[in-house]
């Protein structure tokens, strides 16, 4: 078996003359917490779209464990354990939080095609969904419509939906985007508390959070992997400093 949970080889993608991914190669060992950083427009979200199948690469392959998943549809990749969240909330506004997560559990357990039995008969699925919501402190609001939840709570529903699919690899696209600083720490604490069976890669702009929660960091610039290393190596790397210099000097920790 492959030692890597997720790997990409020679990924290329262009929109016209704009190159958004150039020979990207990644290898994420199982259980590691990765941060994916880079200036705006570096192609971070594009990379997540490519790996989850929401975009098709022009060239290159993607491996989940030993399996080449390059040709699989997004929902098939999810069923094999490669799951993402969205930078901008992509939820079910008129479903309650509990209904949303129960739906995700039912899809994973292949019972969502059943139309002749009432949902209430699926007690295990409902309990599991409620358990996930409880672990993310959402139990008290689980019967509220998703659209009525506070923004930070909606970000947690994003993660709850992803967890309900029992991911092996979780790709979090700016999980704390738009969340006040205090709450974003709680949110990352929840992410840090995830099972070590789950390999996590997250995009994040706040360097404090990156250095606190990531064990390894990948820097992406102009669709290319500039450098990969431990937070300490990244902080000391002159090339990374050069990229960030003048744009967000204060964000780089020396």
């Amino acid at each position, binding site marked *: 078996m492959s030692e890597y949970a997720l790997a990409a080889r020679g990924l290329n993608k262009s929109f016209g003359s704009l190159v958004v991914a150039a020979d990207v190669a990644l290898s994420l060992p199982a259980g590691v917490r990765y941060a994916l950083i880079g200036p705006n427009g570096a192609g971070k979200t594009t990379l997540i779209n490519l790996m*989850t199948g929401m975009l098709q690469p022009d060239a290159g392959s993607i491996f989940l464990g030993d399996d080449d998943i390059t040709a699989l*549809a*997004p*929902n098939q990749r*999810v*069923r094999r354990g490669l*799951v*993402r969240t*969205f930078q901008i909330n*992509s*939820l*079910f*506004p*008129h*479903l309650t939080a*509990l*209904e*949303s997560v*129960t*739906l*995700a559990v*039912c*899809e*994973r357990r292949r*019972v*969502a*095609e*059943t*139309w*002749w*039995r*009432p*949902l*209430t008969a*699926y*007690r295990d*699925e*409902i*309990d599991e*969904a*409620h358990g996930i919501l*409880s672990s993310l402190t959402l*139990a008290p609001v*689980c*019967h509220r419509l998703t659209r009525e939840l506070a923004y930070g709570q909606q970000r947690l529903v994003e993660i709850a*939906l*992803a967890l*309900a*699919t029992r991911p092996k690899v979780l790709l979090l696209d700016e999980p704390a985007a738009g969340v006040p600083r205090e709450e974003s720490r709680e949110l990352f604490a929840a992410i840090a508390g995830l099972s070590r069976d789950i390999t996590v890669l997250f995009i994040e702009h706040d360097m404090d959070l990156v250095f606190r929660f990531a064990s390894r960091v990948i820097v992406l610039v102009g669709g290319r992997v500039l450098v990969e290393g431990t937070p300490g190596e990244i902080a000391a790397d002159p090339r990374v400093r050069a990229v960030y210099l003048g744009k967000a000097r204060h964000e780089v920790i020396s």
Partner: protein
Amino acid sequence: MTSATIAGPHEVLRAQTRWHWSEIAFWLATLLPFVLTPTYLVLGSQIAITALFALSLDLILGFSGIVSLGHAAYFGVGAYTAGLLSTWGWGEPLTGLAAAALAAGLFGYLTSFIIARFRHLALIMITLGIGLVLQEAANSASWLTGGFDGLQGIHTWPIFGALRFDLYGYTAYGYALAGLFVIFLVARRLIHSPFGLALRGIRENNQRMAAIGAPTRAHIRTIYTIAAIIAGIAGAMLAQTTETVSLEALGFQRSADVLVMLILGGTGRLYGGLIGAAVYMVARDQFSGLNPQYWYFWIGVLLIAVVMLLPNGILGGLSLLARRAKAMS
């Protein structure tokens, strides 16, 4: 403490599936025409049939977000199937319904492969196209369908060999109402199933459904086929109770009318199509009595008034009133 928090979610979800008193009142009220307005039972049977047709549209439009301007195609396939069976010498109504369900379901299943690939405006074009293609095909195949003149010589046998279809529509109304009720029970069960929840997920956010691993196209194919079957049964009932089928059964006007009725009543509420069909058809009957030439003028006024005053249809307005009344007390 733990047992209370674990029992909570099940209770809340189960409460949503319980029969509300207003539902029971609604179905009891559908029996009133037998005693109160026995001269309107023929109209009543047509309302019940159209309500069933609108219910089938609600399953795809209201619950799954699949827009259709060609839903009459499946209604028409059902109507012609039952009608043709009868002209060929088999007028038994229940097997006629089964044959119509099969034919409409098959046509629905085949077309669902196209439907499942598109959303929103593209769907309007495609469903409209399917409707037009079928209508012209039926028109040109006049050796089979009777073309513009319609299908002649339909005779529907008594139900169970005993209940004869009478001139006043007693049997027709009872038959249509029973069919509507039975299929409504099936639809209600479907809506409260895991599949029903998945449909609402597709309506709310199709992209996110893929991101939780849902095979959305397979879901859409299933519900589209089910809706086609129900539409076909409704069409067969109209053919059997009126003993005629014309091209109008699968025409654009019927597709547009049923869409209007559903929006009038309120989408995604199961009862919206039923209420909308009743209001629309009673209004049409009354307006055309008052003013045979210009009754569509008043239908137009009714539509504008409902949409301006009740953006979520009649049922949306009623549930808003009910919530306000609850908040006041």
